């Protein structure tokens, strides 16, 4: 996954929380400078999404989803608030990346 040269898109969706709103941040290698695109690919490879798991819900705790899309398909890790360092690093990178897109809205479809 994410080892190829094709476009790679990573989306981090946060929901729940005290406000109950949904915020999502996305980066796409096709919109990134090549050094940034390489940095993103490296972080995706280091993040072992298999480690993420849903804990028992806690009041106002955020729920986090990471969506990784590339030529091979899409992988989703749900409810990954308490994450391995690699996943956390990926999320932090995406949420502060240059050329990221951000959206905020209410929950629901």
């Amino acid at each position, binding site marked *: 996954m994410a080892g190829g040269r094709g476009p790679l898109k990573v989306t981090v*969706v*946060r*929901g*729940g*929380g*005290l*406000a*109950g*709103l*949904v*915020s999502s941040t996305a980066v796409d290698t096709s919109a990134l400078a090549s050094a940034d695109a390489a940095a993103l690919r490296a972080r995706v490879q280091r993040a072992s999404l298999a480690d993420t798991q*849903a804990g028992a*819900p*806690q*009041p*106002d*705790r*955020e*729920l*986090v*989803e990471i969506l990784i899309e590339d030529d091979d398909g899409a992988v989703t890790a*749900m*409810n990954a608030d308490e994450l391995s360092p690699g996943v*956390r690093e990926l999320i932090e990178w995406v949420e502060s990346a240059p050329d990221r897109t*951000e959206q*905020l*809205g*209410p*929950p*629901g*479809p």
Partner: protein
Amino acid sequence: MVCFILPTHVLLELAERGEIDLREAAKAAVASAGMHARRAAVTALVQSLGVEAELMPPPQERKVVYDAQHGVELPGVLRRGPDDGPHADKAVNDAFDNADRTYDFYRDVLGRHSVDGNGADLISTVHYRRGFDNAFWEGTQMVYGDGSGKIFKVGSLAADTSVVAHEITHGVVQFTAGLVYSKQSGALNESWADVFGSVIKQHTLGQTADQADWLLGAGILGTQLPGRALRSMKDPGTAHDFDRQPAHMDDYVDLPDNGDPRNDNGGVHINSGIPNKAFYLVATAVGGHSWEKPALIWYDALATRLQRNSQFKDAAEATVASAKELYGDDEAGIVRSAWREVGVL
């Protein structure tokens, strides 16, 4: 101390049959009796058994604040202990002072010592992660991000009395009804946290129900979330641009609870607008201070009637029953009308 997780009457029976140590049983029974009234009743019971128990003194109020130093480890580094004066960091003092107001309210108005009813330390952690736009109850403590300025103003979460009282009330709910954080029971959990968040702010300001703004988190929103507050109990759905809270069952938003962050544990922060509005209607119909009859009714229902899987209708019936028992038919009628007005009864 030995910790017996058994109802008081079971403990006392065991003690009477000589199966456990009388002294330990009496201590455990008294310790587990949270409210003042229950403590008194249990003390009388213990004394009627002729047990020479050393009754526990009332718990001491203890608040502590830690600093996560922008990391994720909890609780972090201790910044202010129970007997310490103010710290140089405003966030530390904000979390401490608002926990203090909330502790005092629960003790003085409701006769409850801390979240567990037995004086548990009120533990807060500030500076969780970097620019983190959230505050939550982690199961044993409160956690506050600084806010990024986009969703919440920087430094606003721990500084807002209604937000802090909301989070601490999640702790109280956990130790009382234990409302499951999903769909209607989760929305009730949210609503009770909003109710006491607002009531405790009103108590701090000395406001009557008519004077209060009935807002949660007034003035704390950042630049990407235009609005005046997080939620409005008076007018659910009007607090900010993305506020979709209903005020009536006709507009209930039925979301699945499937772990998807888009669904908010089955809409717990959305549908709480319905029971929130019911409390607002009760408080304004009763008049005067919301922390008198209305809050006592809501607290009694939470502590003695609501259960893990209670739904909106159960909450309506519980508060009507509490109103009738505590005050009589007039108050019960007001509570019933409020739940009818929001379409629950």
